[in-house]
């Protein structure tokens, strides 16, 4: 069964450092997403990506965040200068036309 794959599963980084979270979406999907879940809180939408551009983003997705689909298979989320409050579980998701979103297992980011 096809699945969304995220790497790494856990990343620890120092405040102010750049991190890149990686995702391999399901191969024939068209829409790609990043969500985050701060410990004990709800899952929040960050950004959606379609046709090689951002289609929608939330207030959380400020200038410190960027996304890229560099090679047609990977989908990355970059946080330029991490803050303590960026510590969360980050989920990648992908979606085909007229299908539901499939989520990866998540990357737990810990900023120290």
């Amino acid at each position, binding site marked *: 069964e096809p699945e969304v794959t995220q790497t790494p599963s856990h990343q620890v980084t120092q405040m102010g450092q750049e991190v890149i979270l990686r995702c391999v979406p399901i191969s024939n999907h068209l829409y790609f997403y990043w969500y985050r879940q701060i410990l004990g809180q*709800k899952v*929040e939408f960050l950004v*959606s990506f379609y046709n090689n551009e951002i289609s929608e983003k939330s207030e959380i997705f400020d200038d410190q965040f960027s996304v890229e689909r560099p090679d047609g298979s990977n989908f990355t989320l970059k946080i330029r200068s991490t803050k303590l409050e960026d510590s969360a579980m980050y989920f990648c998701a992908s979606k085909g036309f007229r299908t539901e979103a499939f989520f990866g297992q998540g990357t737990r980011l810990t900023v120290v």
Partner: protein
Amino acid sequence: AQSVTQPDIHITVSEGASLELRCNYSYGATPYLFWYVQSPGQGLQLLLKYFSGDTLVQGIKGFEAEFKRSQSSFNLRKPSVHWSDAAEYFCAVGVPNNAGNMLTFGGGTRLMVKP
């Protein structure tokens, strides 16, 4: 903007008992509706979805949900809970024809199962 409310933060049921998890949404029309389950340290697994048509939808693991337009609800049910059902359950809504197609999640309900 759409929103989702899951009124119960925690629910404890005995194994074998029936289960109903509540979900209410706010949106001007009929949204797409989803239930996801998250086991500890795991990702989000889709249990079931409603796009249109029959308002009672069947999902995996013996779960079902009923869309009630008049109550703006999409409650999840299971007739007999198993210990392995202990997890966190999230209701989510999606907006049809929205360019971003993103989901809005409720706060989640943590289910504990007593032996």
